[in-house]
């Protein structure tokens, strides 16, 4: 029964990881950009939510109304002002610039918020749970998982059924020809990053409600998201959700075997899948 419980908890945790991954997956799909600062932006969102929630006395869930558009705006500006200048055939500039950004965000958070762990307090809902057969599930993890499914479904729909998604796919295929259709590449990339950081904001707030966080935890979140993307297969959003779930289950089952084994178990499963299925379980993109 304990094992079943571990698998259930891991599955729900996987939803959070899929949210870390969805934004990464989107910007890689549209502009082949890998943002090393992605995890730090997740943590930045959690801190912004903390400031909004404490400052205005709001529930962190309501703080999303401010943090999501704010992060989207930051994403658009970041892309237009900084990252677009690094886009090209050479992978070094975007990598090193986002790496520098990661260090800047981490240290800025340290300066403003100190290294003390913080948590977003969502009230009674945090501890509420419902029985599910012989198991109990927390309401909060279920909400997070449902949100992840919702976000991925929405992104999928946006990508394949809206004008914006069409513009993303066209730009991803042939940047120059998309430009001939009147699509300004710089703007399209800005929109992709805005959506990425909107999802990131959601992920950050849920992270902050589930566990405590400090300025240094961003790197690990980037790695979890990245592992979910690679396990699921590049370019497949539903695959990313599956990747997140596999990673989450590996971690909770690993923790069950030995508490010090939790994160390591996730990494090992990732490396095993990389060894056996280098293109992930459900690849769609070359």
């Amino acid at each position: 029964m304990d094992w079943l419980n571990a698998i259930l908890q891991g599955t729900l945790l996987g939803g959070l990881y899929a949210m870390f991954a969805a934004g990464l997956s989107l910007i890689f799909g549209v502009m082949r950009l890998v943002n090393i600062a992605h995890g730090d932006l997740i943590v930045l969102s959690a801190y912004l939510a903390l400031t909004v929630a404490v400052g205005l006395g709001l529930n962190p869930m309501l703080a999303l109304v401010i943090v999501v558009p704010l992060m989207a705006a930051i994403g658009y500006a970041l892309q237009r002002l900084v990252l677009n200048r690094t886009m090209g055939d050479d992978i070094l500039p975007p990598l090193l610039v986002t790496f520098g950004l990661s260090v800047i965000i981490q240290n800025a958070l340290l300066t403003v918020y100190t290294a003390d762990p913080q948590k977003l307090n969502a009230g009674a809902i945090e501890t509420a749970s419902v029985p599910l057969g012989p198991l109990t599930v927390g309401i909060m993890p279920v909400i997070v998982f449902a949100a992840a499914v919702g976000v991925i479904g929405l992104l999928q729909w946006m990508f394949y059924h809206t004008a914006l998604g069409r513009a993303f796919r066209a730009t991803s295929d042939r940047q120059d020809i998309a430009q001939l259709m009147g699509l300004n590449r710089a703007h399209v990339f800005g929109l992709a990053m805005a959506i990425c950081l909107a999802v990131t904001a959601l992920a950050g707030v849920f992270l902050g409600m589930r566990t405590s966080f400090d300025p240094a935890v961003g790197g690990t979140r980037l790695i979890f998201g990245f592992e979910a993307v690679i396990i699921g297969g590049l370019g497949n959003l539903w695959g990313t959700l599956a990747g997140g779930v596999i990673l989450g289950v590996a971690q909770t089952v690993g923790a069950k075997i030995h508490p010090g084994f939790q994160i390591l178990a996730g990494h090992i499963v990732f490396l095993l899948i990389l060894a056996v299925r280098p293109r992930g379980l459900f690849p769609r993109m070359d």
Partner: protein
Amino acid sequence: MPELLEIKGLDARYGDFQALYGVDMTVSAGEVVAVIGANGAGKTTLMRSISGLIRNGADMVRYRGNAIGALRADQVAAQGVALVPEGRLLFQSLSVEENLIIGGQMGRKGPWNLRRLYDLFPILEERRNVPATALSGGQQQMVAIGRALMSNPDLLMMDEISLGLAPVIIRQIYEALPGIVGEGLTAIVVEQDIAKALSVSSRVICLQEGRVSLSGKSGDVTRDAISRAYFGV
């Protein structure tokens, strides 16, 4: 009243390599101009320069009197200039219909819409939901032309639209041309097949090694003059 398109002293580079030297050319509203020349003469560079895919000095290209030489391709497109690029270059992740819709995404007003395009090329309506790259070469070329028309351009440029296609298909596409150009549309046609180029155009320009080697009315130019301009002999 300025000419629709006026090119003066256009020097264009392709990477480190200069492909055009001081090209002058004008296109008046409503005419069809053919651009001919051997491989590597600079025809595609000229098309890319006009459409903004290669950016040059602002004054080198004027459209309706405005300097557009330094604008980005999307800004040029918004003014009503469309290019059917060499090699078609359809979006492979988009269906046939999506390729057409995205051509019209700027929302410029004009005679062209999905309905009219499907009337012009009925096969495309039949295959509207398949990935664009699953079509035959000729059908892909129809999509590429349709995608450009969907933007309701005032100036339509077609770069080597018959390249690699069966003669029957080429004839089909060229038979559709009068219907397309009829409604006040101005066109530049880049073509390897000189006879074809002369038959559809009112004026012709020949490029040789990046320079204009001949320019005149399509009916007036002699075979001799063309072969001199073409090969430089």
